[in-house]
């Protein structure tokens, strides 16, 4: 045995196709996921040069960013329609499997990869979408790429990458009751900032992470990009293996057991070192609410918006509060919302919907609040309906939608109107993200559900819950 290695180093060494001084490494890509928004120009590039997709069998496409979530038959925006039609044409021409709007495997690209078992430990996974980091929850090296790189992967199944530095975010202590993975990652970003991970790949470690479900790990890894890192991952363990067992694209039978051993061996070795280590105490985390226009501008539910003069970045804070229509030193619980969005690749899996439904069950959405639930995939939607979760939401006054990105980025009709204020389970609260002049507060599904009922933010830890899985 040589020097102990971390998982990032192990995967990297397995994937180098070519190495030459003064250049980045040429890495092999095991899985390439594509969607309608960032792929058309890449296909166009191939066509202009008469190139092919090298490995259509390692490439999977879905439609998520601008699919309609009310009525699948009605794509009102002609340009969105053109993008979807273009994807369909391109997939046919280049021989790529496509899960279109009507396919049962359709969904947000980062929800369906894991759900189908395409996402596996040790794989290099890329997609023209920054939240590709989500797949890192499985111990895969997964990162977002731009359209030129999409074209490059199409043509060569490889990518030029500088070996990243490694950052270990080590979580100590335990999460309190009613505090979720979303709160944890928001609290980490609030403390260390949106550039904490710039230039690094993060590995999250600690008992809290080990005890988390795969869904929670995905929520954490999803937001690595909001911490500035291109990728974030968790070493695979039995939880990972059990999640993948029996999934449609996972290996079967003996082959699965063999693979599972290889996967487990990828986990960081005892004593592995990193370029940087950050330790964070989970026990101090409360449910979080962002008050500003980047994900680090957040506060605990018992907290207040900052005092401008006392902050490190007074001008930034002032601009953010102004955009958000908030006062300085305002209690978070005094913020009233008029929109609620439960969805996005951060929090739209079955577990998220169950937890939100437990808060909602038997209650009513506050008058004047428009609340929507958008499952992360068509399969999540079907499973939730089997459990009667759709009814719980609908009876409470939520809208129950088809799967897609929806109000996370408002590329379809699902937008927050100007000046509207939304409790959102998504990952970005940038200006105009959910609609022009819309105000976004990032929260967990539980917090969003309680906000829908109360019309303002409340501490979900003291909130009544009704179990729905008995």
């Amino acid at each position, binding site marked *: 045995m040589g020097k102990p290695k971390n998982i990032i180093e192990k995967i990297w060494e397995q994937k180098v196709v070519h190495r030459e001084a003064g250049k980045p490494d*040429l890495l092999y890509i095991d899985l390439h996921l594509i969607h309608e928004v960032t792929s058309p120009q890449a296909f166009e590039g191939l066509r202009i040069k008469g190139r092919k997709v090298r490995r259509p069998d390692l490439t999977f496409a879905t439609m998520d960013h601008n699919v309609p979530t009310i009525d699948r038959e009605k794509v009102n925006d002609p340009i969105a329609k053109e993008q979807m039609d273009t994807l369909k044409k391109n997939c046919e021409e280049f021989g790529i499997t496509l899960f279109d709007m009507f396919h049962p495997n359709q969904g947000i690209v980062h929800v369906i990869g894991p759900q189908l078992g395409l996402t596996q430990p040790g794989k290099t996974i890329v997609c023209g979408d*920054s939240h590709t980091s989500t797949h890192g929850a499985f111990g895969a090296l997964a990162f977002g790429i731009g359209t030129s790189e999409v074209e490059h992967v199409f043509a060569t199944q490889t990518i*030029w990458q500088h070996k990243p530095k490694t950052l270990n975010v080590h979580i100590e202590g335990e999460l309190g009751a009613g505090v979720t993975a979303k709160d944890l990652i928001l609290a980490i970003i609030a403390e260390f900032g949106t550039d904490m991970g710039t230039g690094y790949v993060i590995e999250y470690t600690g008992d809290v992470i080990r005890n988390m479900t795969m869904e929670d790990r995905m929520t954490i890894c999803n937001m690595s990009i909001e911490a500035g890192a291109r990728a974030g991952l968790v070493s695979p363990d039995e939880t990972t293996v059990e999640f993948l067992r029996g999934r449609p694209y996972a290996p079967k039978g003996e082959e699965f057991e063999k693979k599972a051993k290889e996967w487990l061996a990828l986990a960081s070795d005892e004593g592995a070192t990193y370029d940087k280590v950050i330790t964070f105490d989970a026990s101090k985390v409360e449910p979080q609410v962002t008050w500003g226009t980047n994900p680090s501008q957040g506060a605990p539910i018992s907290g207040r918006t900052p005092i401008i003069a006392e902050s490190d970045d007074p001008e930034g804070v002032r601009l953010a509060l102004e955009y958000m229509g908030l006062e300085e030193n305002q209690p978070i619980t005094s913020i009233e919302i008029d929109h609620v969005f439960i969805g996005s690749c951060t929090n739209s899996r079955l577990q998220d919907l169950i937890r939100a439904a437990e808060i909602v069950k038997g209650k009513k959405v506050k008058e004047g609040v428009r609340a929507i639930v958008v499952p992360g995939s068509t399969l999540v939607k079907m499973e939730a309906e089997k459990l009667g979760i759709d009814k719980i939401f609908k009876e409470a006054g939520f809208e129950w939608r088809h799967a897609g990105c929806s109000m996370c980025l408002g590329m379809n009709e699902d937008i927050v109107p100007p000046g509207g204020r939304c409790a959102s389970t998504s990952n970005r609260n940038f200006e105009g993200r959910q609609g022009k002049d819309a105000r976004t507060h990032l929260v967990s599904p539980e917090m969003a559900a309680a906000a829908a009922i109360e019309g303002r933010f409340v501490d979900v830890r003291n909130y009544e819950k009704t179990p729905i899985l008995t």
Partner: protein
Amino acid sequence: MEAFVKHTGLVVPLNRTNVDTDQIVPKQFLKSVKRTGFGKHLFHNWRYNEDGSPNESFILNDPKYKDATILIAGENFGSGSSREHAPWALLDYGFKAIISPKFADIFYNNSLKNGLVLVEIDEAQVDKWMKEAEEGELRLTVDLETMTVSDDKGVSVSFEIPEYNRQNIMNGWDEIDLTLQLEDKIREYEQTRLY
């Protein structure tokens, strides 16, 4: 892409930190299936009023900066999504180089792949040039050969850019062509190591 060795141009100061890709090109403009024509949507929400008229108070609309080809901005420029529309829009508008104390990762990479030169220099110098650009007329020269950016008063600062990208940009090379020269290696990898 267009080769870039050295460029001198007028600087427009965008005195903001954390300028994210949603600001650079709002998502309603991402639906095109083409690579060109994004320049008119650059900074749309800041640049235009509700009725589509130019917002006079936004710096890019100040006639003084009409011919600017270099943008200087606060730290963490380009954070957010992986949309390559951001560098496409900046290039299409006419920018050749962006200067900031720090760029977001994916944006950095996307920009270099498209030949948009990103100059990462120390914050104090950014602040100085920002001020000069705001108060007067600042011209800077970005030189990829020497990896320096300099003004006409003799201030010259070096910056780093990965050697690989530097060569590609200076020569205007197509990266896919370069990689395809390694086709044998890729095939060998697939035959021996792929699982």
